[in-house]
């Protein structure tokens, strides 16, 4: 039987939330083709994680014992490579994580597998797997195919598939890791600095500014606007990278997910996938952007095609 293999991912002792979305994607794909879903977990104590992978639709959990619990790229590459030799899956799925960005291209390059990252839809057209992803800053969608590839490696975009709640008792097997020449060595994890700054993740009302702000001198106007409106000021990554606002204000994949937010005002933010990872879920998004095609409008509830400075000048009068 054809197989879909999922590589479960974990960090600091927890399976990542995205792993459960990837399993949901695998189970959905399985239903269209009648494949099996085999979930591999690599860890120093894999049983600790496999207990949490008893999810309806999974056919097998494969425990792979490795020495170090944290991700090490050569180890993941060698183990996944052996799993591919042994199981010959048609599709291998991981989340579109930084760890996957490190190891999956290596396996794809060495084995010449079909390969695509940041995929948000998977479908079969007959026997051809079609993976859909974005290009040109989310302005285009692309359907990819993988002719003549026996195995296709896919990393899946987050927040696309809903985790499966239903549990099941899934058979567990173990697979022995090949020997590995690890060329990188873990030293330590560095957590973001704790600050006395407000926690944007707890704010209900957020006003975020992006690169449309142009220069540091313009920040003040929006600080004042946010204050006057009773909003907390957030930002996209370039603003934090430039040091114009503290890193703790950054919304997105490498910043904060604004879980408590109800209303999000986005000024001069294009809507990159990494920014959206932090705020896409917000029910009321109001976006102001001069570019009518900006991808932020795809997820916004209200779109305003206008200059952010002109809007800000007017808007403040309604709150003073």
């Amino acid at each position, binding site marked *: 039987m054809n197989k879909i293999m999922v590589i479960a991912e974990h960090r600091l002792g927890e399976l990542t939330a995205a792993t459960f979305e990837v399993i949901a994607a695998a189970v959905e794909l399985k239903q269209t083709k009648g494949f099996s879903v085999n979930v591999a977990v690599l860890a120093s104590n894999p049983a600790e994680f496999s207990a949490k992978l008893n999810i309806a639709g999974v056919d097998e959990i494969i425990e792979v014992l490795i020495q170090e619990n944290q991700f090490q790229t050569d180890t993941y590459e060698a183990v996944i490579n052996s799993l591919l030799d042994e199981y010959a899956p048609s599709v291998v799925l991981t989340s579109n994580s930084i760890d996957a960005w490190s190891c999956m291209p290596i396996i794809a390059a060495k084995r010449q597998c079909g390969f695509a990252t940041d995929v948000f839809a998977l479908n079969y057209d007959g026997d051809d797997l079609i993976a859909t992803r974005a*290009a040109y800053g989310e302005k285009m969608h692309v359907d990819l195919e*993988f002719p003549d590839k026996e195995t296709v490696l896919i990393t899946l975009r987050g927040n696309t598939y809903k985790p499966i709640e239903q549990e099941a008792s899934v058979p567990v097997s173990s697979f022995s890791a090949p020997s590995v020449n690890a060329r*990188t*060595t*873990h030293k330590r994890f*560095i957590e973001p600095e704790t600050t006395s700054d407000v926690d944007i993740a707890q704010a209900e009302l957020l006003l975020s500014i992006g690169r449309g702000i142009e220069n540091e001198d313009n920040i003040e106007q929006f600080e004042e606007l946010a204050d006057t409106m009773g909003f907390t000021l957030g930002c996209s990554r370039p603003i934090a990278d430039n040091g114009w606002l503290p890193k703790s204000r950054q919304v997105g994949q*490498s910043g904060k997910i604004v879980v408590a937010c109800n209303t999000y005002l986005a000024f001069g933010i294009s809507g990159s996938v990494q920014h959206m990872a932090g705020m896409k879920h917000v029910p009321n998004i109001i976006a102001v952007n001069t570019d009518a095609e900006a991808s932020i409008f*795809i997820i916004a509830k209200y*779109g305003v095609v206008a200059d952010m400075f002109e809007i800000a000048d007017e808007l403040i009068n309604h709150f003073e």
Partner: protein
Amino acid sequence: MKILVPVKQVGIIDEDYEIRDDGKNVDVDFLDYEINEWDNYSWELALNLQETYGEAVEIVPLTVGPDEAEDVLLNCLAKGGERGIRVWDDALVDSDSMAIAQVIAKVAEHENADYVLTGTLSSDHSFAATGMCVAGLLNWAHAAVVSKVDITPDAQQITVNRELEAGIEEEITVESPAVLSIQLGINEPRYASLRGIKQAKAKPVEVMSHKDFGLTDAEVGEMGSLSKVRKMYAPEHSQAELIEGTVAEQAKRIAEIVKELKGDT
């Protein structure tokens, strides 16, 4: 120590665009071009190392792209470095990360490079894979999404930070030679000076084809790619309710919506 820095000219969609006749990409006539944002950071890192260690470090920018792409090399050379390399052939059109990586890996071997510093991703197709595909082909040690680097010439290993999700970083050591993909914010890229831009025009750029490195047409372009574009299309239009009118009207409407949501109308 030699550092090879692959840089890319990326296409950016202008307001109006048309899809190519074969439906697989945007018509090049409708794209604006600029250097990939991430590559400013990888080149800056190379410049910094060269400035710190002087002649012990040689830095070479490389681009895989047509004539027009030479602009990105000039942009790099205007900031530093003595020579550049550009590889192109019509067979390279429609190459994905893997097919481009085939070329970069060959150049790295040919140049006896110790490090290849790529950008984490390029803003046009955003695969975030080219650098690591190069590492796979060369079988070198590697780290993706690097946010801090400590390299000394001739060191057997270097220390880098990998930027992970949610602001967490991981400090690791990496054996040399290595491929690193460099993340935004690792440094502050400089701007080219007018003098630098003038000087860059006098610096040699070697133009080569993939065939000069023994690569066949089947290893590059669409044939050498790990995926094939079936079609490209505009996503479904936004569900957003457009707030129209004069700026004053738009602002007034935003204020109404916000007040309603805050419950203090």
